[in-house]
């Protein structure tokens, strides 16, 4: 009977303990789900039940079509109002998983006589799925370590800001359901690998299919699982379980992924998917070799191996040459290149680089999104190395890959978050395991304290004799060890000692208490941090803005909806609205008007056309506008109240994208001052001042300030007083805070005059008397 650090009840029957544990587990999971859902509702409480941001507006609009007209209609939906005049085949260019999910929920609820508005389903879908994600993460981590680690991981993923940022109520985007699918697919894969059951492989494939239907990030799974299988094979860990799990997943998963129209034949034709196919082929070879090996002697086997290797090499090389020659395998896509070369996008595809979520991640955002988990995460990965079962390898690979990708693109922080939660939970629960364990180490009385004491003092003593410089270095690890770092004690606790009987552990309640209190404090602080970040940073719908009044009360700025409803009420139903592509989905969703470009940035030339119109002078832009039947132009202007996400700040991207297509007409350098500054004040370059965007943004702006100097509050620069004249556009509407300004494009003059002359005439300026040209011209002698 080992000695205990604190009394533990001994008179409990094992069944009682088991029942109590499972009951507590269910309660804990329920509470975690509740917390996960609740912390995502800040947006609804602070603002209202509204769809957020940009892409969700399209998803919402598509879901409304799906709910109203049914699945087949949705499948064949051609939207003539998007990408005017091209239109968009929505059914074939969309990942339908999200909409289908909401549609199914909507119809099920209706069948149960619960008439819930489709908007509320869309708003609350992401929080609902976050509860499922917590459950999936629990299952996944349980496979890695045990149930207590699983519960910790579930709690982490439930409230970690890195995941909340994409799944608050109203953020109705593909990622909302994709992370659940990602984790569940991984869980099924691990389960299939562990048991060697084709059932789990098939289930993994079915969820993989769901994932393919839901999010373009499915490629991550497509490469993670083969990579894991490949690493296992290279480490000589091939087993028939691996064969069963991988093959059943790959075959069913690949075939099913081709059912999604947007994916089509890509899984057998693009390079992103070739890795999975290669590993599949390799597995067949290895499995067959294994079978042969079990039937022949090693000598014969080697002979066979040699022959078959040569044959396979020749066959493989010729097949690859043939396929490349025939152009069957498509090269890597640009987005994929930008993952490897962070400068690639800026050089070749400015449209990708212009999206803020494609920028490389800033260091502080790691802490902001993951807080203490980012520090514990490596410890968890190291703990995985210690045991290094097949599934631990998966976590390690996942951690490495996801860390890299999260560093490349802000957006991919989302794929890193689950593995951070899992690894941190493993580390944290190992820590708690050691320190909560009541059993005192049972060692010969004299030896143990000596072992414990020596590293702390002995190292310093020995090194001080050798020299001062070394001792400083050595002091540091010693200090770290002495300060009760979790890591060192963990290694001490788990690593096998020299003697077979040597046990390690913690003595006394005080040392336990210090560490445990510290851990609990960290956890509590983590909760505070998450709640704070969620409520402050990630719960803004960005359609509705909030500001603080001077007395601290909240002031709602609702300019976007004001403008969109103005468009909806006051313009013809087929009036084409031009804006920068960011606002395309919102205009389509809220104003229900055709747009030239929207957030589905598939046609670079079309976007560049809009960029060109915005960045050229009125006379040059007017023919472009008229050719595209544009009736209204919408710009976002934050200069009056200091809304920094406005079009003038995005203007350089418009210029760059336009320059990419018309390098002769638009040059970025023309928009800077001679000193290379981006200015909007008196010193702004002539091209800048004459650009349509500049004129539309600052039209009549100076008048607001009366006799005072007009100041742009975003750029903190004075705005020139000279009134801006617009000859080809009329100001149609400007919202309360001037965030959205809408201009109407004038029709051609009914007297056939140049609009500039017509405007000059109307304002009373006498134009040059123009003589009509004679039709008759003498022959040149």
């Amino acid at each position, binding site marked *: 009977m080992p000695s205990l650090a604190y009394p533990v009840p001994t008179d409990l029957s094992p069944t009682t303990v088991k029942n109590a544990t499972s009951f507590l587990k269910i309660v804990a999971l329920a509470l975690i789900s509740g917390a996960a859902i609740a912390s995502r509702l800040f947006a609804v409480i602070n603002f209202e039940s509204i769809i957020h941001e940009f892409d969700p507006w399209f998803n919402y609009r598509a879901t409304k079509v799906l709910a109203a007209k049914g699945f087949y209609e949705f499948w064949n939906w051609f939207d003539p109002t998007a990408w005017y005049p091209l239109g968009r085949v929505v059914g074939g260019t969309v990942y339908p998983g999200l909409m289908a999910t909401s549609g199914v929920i909507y119809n099920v609820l209706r069948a149960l006589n619960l008439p819930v508005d489709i908007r509320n389903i869309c708003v609350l879908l992401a929080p609902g799925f976050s509860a499922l994600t917590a459950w999936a993460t629990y299952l996944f981590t349980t496979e890695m370590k045990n149930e207590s680690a699983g519960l910790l991981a579930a709690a982490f993923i439930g409230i970690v800001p890195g995941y909340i940022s994409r799944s608050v109520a109203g953020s109705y985007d593909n990622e909302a359901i994709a992370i659940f699918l990602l984790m569940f697919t991984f869980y099924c894969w691990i389960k299939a690998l562990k*048991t*060697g*059951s*084709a*059932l789990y*492989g*098939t289930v993994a*494939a*079915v969820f993989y299919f769901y994932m393919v239907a839901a999010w373009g990030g499915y490629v991550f799974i497509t490469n993670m699982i083969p990579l894991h299988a490949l690493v296992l094979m290279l480490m000589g860990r091939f*087993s*028939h*379980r691996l*064969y*069963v799990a991988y*093959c*059943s997943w*790959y*075959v*069913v998963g*690949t*075939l*099913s992924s*081709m*059912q999604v129209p947007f994916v089509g*034949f890509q899984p*057998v034709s693009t390079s992103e998917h070739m890795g999975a196919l290669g590993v599949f082929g390799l597995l*067949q070879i290895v*499995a067959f070799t294994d079978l*042969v090996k*079990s*039937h*022949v*002697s090693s*000598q*014969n*086997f080697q*002979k*066979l191996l040699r022959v078959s290797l040569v044959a396979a090499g020749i066959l493989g090389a010729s097949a690859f040459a043939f396929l490349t020659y025939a152009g069957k395998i498509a090269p890597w896509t640009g987005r994929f290149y930008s993952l490897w070369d962070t400068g690639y996008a800026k050089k070749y595809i400015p449209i990708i680089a212009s999206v803020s979520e494609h920028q490389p991640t800033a260091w502080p955002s790691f802490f902001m999104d993951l807080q203490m988990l980012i520090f514990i995460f490596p410890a968890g990965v190291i703990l995985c190395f210690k045991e290094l079962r097949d599934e631990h390898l998966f976590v390690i690979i996942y951690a490495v890959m996801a860390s890299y990708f999260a560093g490349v693109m802000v957006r991919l922080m989302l794929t890193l978050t689950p593995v951070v939660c899992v690894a941190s939970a493993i580390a944290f629960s190992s820590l708690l395991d050691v320190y909560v364990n009541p059993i005192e180490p049972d060692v010969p009385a004299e030896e143990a304290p000596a072992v414990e004491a020596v590293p702390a003092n002995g190292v310093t003593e020995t090194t001080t004799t050798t020299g001062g410089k070394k001792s400083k270095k050595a002091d540091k690890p010693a200090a770290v060890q002495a300060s009760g770092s979790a890591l060192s004690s963990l290694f001490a606790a788990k690593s096998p000692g020299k003697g077979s009987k040597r046990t390690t552990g913690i003595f006394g309640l005080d040392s336990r208490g210090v560490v445990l209190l510290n851990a609990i404090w960290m956890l509590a602080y983590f909760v505070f941090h998450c709640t704070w970040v969620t409520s402050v940073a990630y719960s803004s719908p960005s359609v509705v803005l909030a500001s603080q009044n001077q007395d601290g009360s909240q002031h709602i700025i609702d300019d976007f909806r004001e403008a969109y409803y103005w468009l909806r009420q006051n313009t013809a139903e087929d009036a084409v609205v031009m804006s920068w592509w960011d606002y395309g989905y919102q205009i389509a969703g809220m104003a229900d008007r055709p747009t030239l470009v929207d957030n589905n940035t598939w046609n670079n030339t079309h976007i560049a056309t809009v960029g060109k119109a915005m960045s050229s002078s009125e006379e040059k832009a007017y023919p472009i506008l008229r050719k595209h039947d544009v009736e209204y132009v919408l710009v976002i202007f934050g200069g009056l109240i200091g809304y920094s996400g406005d079009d003038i700040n995005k203007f350089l991207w418009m210029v760059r994208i336009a320059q990419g297509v018309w390098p002769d007409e638009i040059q970025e350098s023309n928009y800077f001052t001679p000193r290379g500054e981006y200015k909007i004040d008196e010193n702004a370059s002539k091209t800048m001042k004459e650009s349509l965007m500049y004129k539309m943004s600052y039209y009549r702006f100076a008048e607001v300030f009366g006799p005072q100097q007009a100041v742009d509050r975003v750029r903190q620069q004075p705005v020139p007083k000279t009134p801006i004249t617009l000859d080809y556009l009329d100001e149609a509407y400007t919202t309360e805070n001037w965030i959205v300004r809408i201009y109407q494009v004038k029709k051609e003059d009914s007297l056939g005059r140049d609009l500039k002359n017509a405007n000059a005439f109307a304002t009373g300026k006498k134009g040059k008397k123009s003589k009509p040209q004679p039709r008759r011209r003498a022959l040149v002698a």
Partner: protein
Amino acid sequence: MSSKSQPSSNPMASLWNSYNDQTSNRLKFIDSFLVYLMLSGIVQFAYCVLVTSFPYNAFLSGFSSTVGQFVLAASLRSQVNPANKDEFKEVSPERAFADFALGSIVLHFFVYNFLG
């Protein structure tokens, strides 16, 4: 087992002998199914390369149905193989057959869906 101990001049022959000796009829039954699937897949692939790949989705679904059925059957084979008993502790032969049936049905569903 004698063929195993003495180094045979022809490795292929020794392989064949040992296979015939060591494999139970049940496994041979599955193996012949595997051979059938392989031939069928090869024929389809040859047709695709030699003649036309025109209804590409039909070819893909046909070909992947043979490949899929092949790997599912191969999985079944390795699961019921007594030699691999240690690897599959949680999978009894019956469970393996249930997995096989489920996997096949899901596979066939997608195959028919893709066939056009």
